[in-house]
């Protein structure tokens, strides 16, 4: 059976859409629900900064922007991840000077951060939840690509 690239791409565009496109509507809905549990919990715990493409937590943007490697995993959520990263860039990283506070970083350098930037477990778990949601969605989208349309294994489909 040939790999269904369309289902893979649709699954990356919106979690569950790949399975929905091959007729597995029941699975698609459950996949989207599971994704939302992880993604929304991550955003609630860590705030918008949980999904960030540049300047990971504990780095000083003034010393030159660094790519956030966690975003590679989060990007598995597709446009949702890029949309929230853009939102983070606009609201958190691009915040007005009056919304920023001076901070001392682990290398004793002085920087500034948005006053509601998550630190500690908030930053860790917020990032982790969204990263796992992205990774799981990538694996699920791959499954959509290899799933036959006529597969009748799934009860109410």
């Amino acid at each position, binding site marked *: 059976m040939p790999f269904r690239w369309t289902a893979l791409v649709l699954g990356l565009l919106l979690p*569950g859409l790949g*399975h929905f496109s091959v007729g597995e509507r*029941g*699975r698609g809905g*459950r*996949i989207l*629900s*599971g*994704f939302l*549990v*992880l993604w929304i*919990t991550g*955003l*609630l*715990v*860590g*705030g*918008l*900064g949980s999904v960030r493409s540049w300047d990971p937590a504990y780095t000083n943007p003034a010393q030159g922007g660094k790519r956030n490697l966690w975003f590679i995993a989060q990007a598995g959520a597709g446009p949702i991840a890029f949309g929230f990263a853009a939102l983070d860039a606009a*609201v958190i990283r691009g915040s007005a000077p009056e919304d920023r506070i001076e901070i001392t970083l682990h290398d004793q350098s002085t920087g500034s951060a948005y006053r*509601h930037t*998550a*630190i*500690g*477990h*908030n*930053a860790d*778990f*917020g990032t*982790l*939840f969204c990263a*796992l*949601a992205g990774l*799981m*969605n990538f*694996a*699920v989208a791959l*499954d959509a690509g290899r799933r036959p349309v006529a597969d009748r*294994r*799934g*009860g*109410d*489909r």
Partner: protein
Amino acid sequence: MIGFGWIPLLEPLPGVQASWLWLLPILIFGISMMYKAVRVGDLRRYWREVVGMTVQVLLAFLGLAAAVFIVVQGIVPLLPAG
């Protein structure tokens, strides 16, 4: 305790730094939901499978924590210092 001034999605959730372990069941539950949506054959068994996997993983974590606790608190102090 969650303050009334908390703005969801913009500000981090208050209280997580002190009590973060409760996030673990939610994390495992979400992963189980996505995993079992793909793996389970009959979707009528879906929620039973999700709860089963969540409980299994949590029990595995508890077992590992107990094992590490015994090693660190019980066995390591018995070892000769030199």
